């Protein structure tokens, strides 16, 4: 009896899975064209020999990959630090994590605010959130510079009010990089979280209060678990591009603290070592993939376990 029911359920699940795959076909085709193909080019390039003036020579070589793992001298003439790449990677990961955390801190309440407005005004708020996307990333980053640089808006205001005597150095600090990153990536957090909260049935929150839950308890046990998919999606959307970001760290940090993205950029530009650049890119992609699989396993599994 029991096993019969179980196998019936399994059968149903399998049919459901098949249906989902066939529905996903168009997306899969697009993904393979625009995501797998360029990646394949990168993989191929990473196994070639650098050309003298950039580009590649069609000759198999493991030097690119060798340079990723065993650090050799890259920019200066001294023998390169054995862990230069690792520390750059660590810095990038830290920045991406901090960016994700900050966009969460600011994005969750923002998404909550918008999702709890009357239906008519939500579109207006969402419009405001997406406006920055209309402008180029470079322009947006320079706009922030304008606000925080030595003779920028904030410093001029504070000087004018007499709060400070000398401009505060804000540009080219870690804080500036984080500020820029948070600003640039905030919408990527807000959008999926908003979508999740909007779908949330607030009668469930009422049921929780009716069952003696405090506001915080309701948030922790009912609201958060149900909007978690949105938060995870937002975190992935922010973390991955943040890991490879290079425009914002470069402009806001003044290029003092190199990020993985800048490192890659360097190989394709001044460095003239495309295979190394490609190898660095592919290794970043691999790292992201591994991290993604692990975290999805952990979060989704955790969701199932505690319920």
């Amino acid at each position: 009896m029991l096993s019969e029911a179980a196998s019936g359920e399994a059968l149903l699940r399998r049919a459901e899975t098949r249906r989902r795959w066939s529905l996903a076909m168009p997306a899969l085709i697009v993904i393979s064209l625009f995501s797998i193909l360029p990646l394949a080019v990168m993989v191929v390039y990473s196994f070639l020999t650098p050309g003298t003036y950039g580009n590649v020579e069609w000759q198999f070589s493991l030097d690119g990959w060798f340079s990723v793992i065993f650090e050799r001298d890259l920019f200066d003439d001294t023998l390169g630090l054995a862990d230069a790449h690792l520390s750059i990677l660590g810095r990038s990961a830290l920045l991406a994590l901090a960016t994700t955390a900050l966009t969460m801190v600011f994005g969750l309440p923002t998404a909550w605010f918008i999702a709890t407005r009357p239906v008519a005004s939500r579109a207006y708020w969402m419009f405001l959130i997406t406006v920055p996307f209309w402008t180029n990333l470079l322009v947006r980053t320079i706009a922030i510079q304008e606000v925080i640089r030595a003779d920028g808006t904030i410093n001029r205001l504070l000087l004018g009010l007499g709060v400070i005597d000398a401009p505060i150095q804000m540009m080219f600090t870690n804080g500036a990089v984080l500020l820029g990153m948070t600003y640039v990536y905030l919408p990527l957090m807000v959008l999926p979280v908003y979508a999740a909260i909007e779908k949330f049935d607030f009668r469930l929150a009422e049921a929780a209060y009716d069952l003696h839950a405090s506001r915080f308890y309701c948030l922790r046990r009912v609201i958060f678990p149900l909007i978690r998919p949105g938060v995870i999606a937002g975190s992935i959307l922010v973390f991955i591009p943040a890991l490879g970001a290079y425009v914002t760290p470069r402009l806001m940090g003044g290029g003092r603290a190199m990020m993985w993205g800048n490192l890659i950029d360097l190989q394709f530009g001044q460095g003239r070592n495309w295979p190394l650049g490609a190898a660095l890119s592919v290794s970043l992609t691999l790292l992201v993939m591994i991290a993604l699989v692990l975290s999805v396993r952990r979060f989704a599994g955790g969701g199932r376990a505690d319920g």
Partner: protein
Amino acid sequence: MLEIKSLSKTFGAGVAAYHALRSVDVTVEDGEFFTLLGPSGCGKTTLLRLIAGFEQPTGGQLVLDGQDIAAIPPSRRPVNTVFQSYALFPHMTVAQNVAFGLEARGTPARDVAARVEEVLQLVQMDHLRDRKSAALSGGQQQRVALARALAPRPRILLLDEPLSALDLKLRKEMQAELKRLQREMGLTFIFVTHDQDEALTMSDRIAVMEGGRLQQVAAPRDLYDHPANRFVAGFIGETNLLPGEAGNGQLRLAGLAPAPIAEAGAESGAVTVMIRPEHVVVGQEAANAVHTSGRVDELIFFGTDTHVKLSLPGGGSLTARTQNSLHSGTHLTEGQTVPLSLPYEALRILPDEAAHAV
């Protein structure tokens, strides 16, 4: 004991103001199965939400066991709700749903487990305790919602049309079961429905609502036999309303012999007279009754009984209900004219509705 004192609720303000509740006064006794009955939009859910604390009254008081509960937030009121939509937490199992109210109050884990087991057995859902609540049938969800609301041992259980989403057979089953649970636990139920049969079969007392007002609060039998006004008479069961005149302890139906009825009082004036279809005697001239005759326009077969639509000589119409038992006498055919008797006992005088109709 829950005392509801001149409770009012107005949504919005100014021209957009909507009076969902207008000065509701009623006391719900301990251990009572108290039903709020009324048409859609009459304010039943609003009253329940005020008791649960989801809405603040715009006037009046809610007094539970001598204490005004207006300032107490929903999470600390000793009442729990079975929601119309059930509102089960979809990411939790049956047991986790039921445990929620206990855990939220910080009940020790061992006590939670024991209580969850107890209430799951009570609603016969213990075999599905590890099933996700989203994967339950409507009837099962209903039971879990009930178990979840019962688990924290509320002083009063609020039920907002809990059975309206179930099919007829399941609904009948659950009606009996709810009634049994309520009686066994001696718990106060405030039950909302717009189904009069449900209200009549389950309740100790019924409050009939319309337009945000309580029309009448009475036991099912009294409500049926002695409706306070036209609305209640028409809403509960089927009824015949006839114009008449009352005065001098006599009731006179248009064109018929006067009936000596105590309720008629001394003052004379136009009244509405009510008689239930099952009290109309068809085919006989019974004693202690007003006699007339009627033409059978239509016979509608209902299984246990037949509804007889009659037209009266004066131009009015009347519905009678005859039992289809083997020993019930007359055989009727459409078009036939038959004698009718309206027993004095069954005639009810309803107050003039002019004030109410506005």
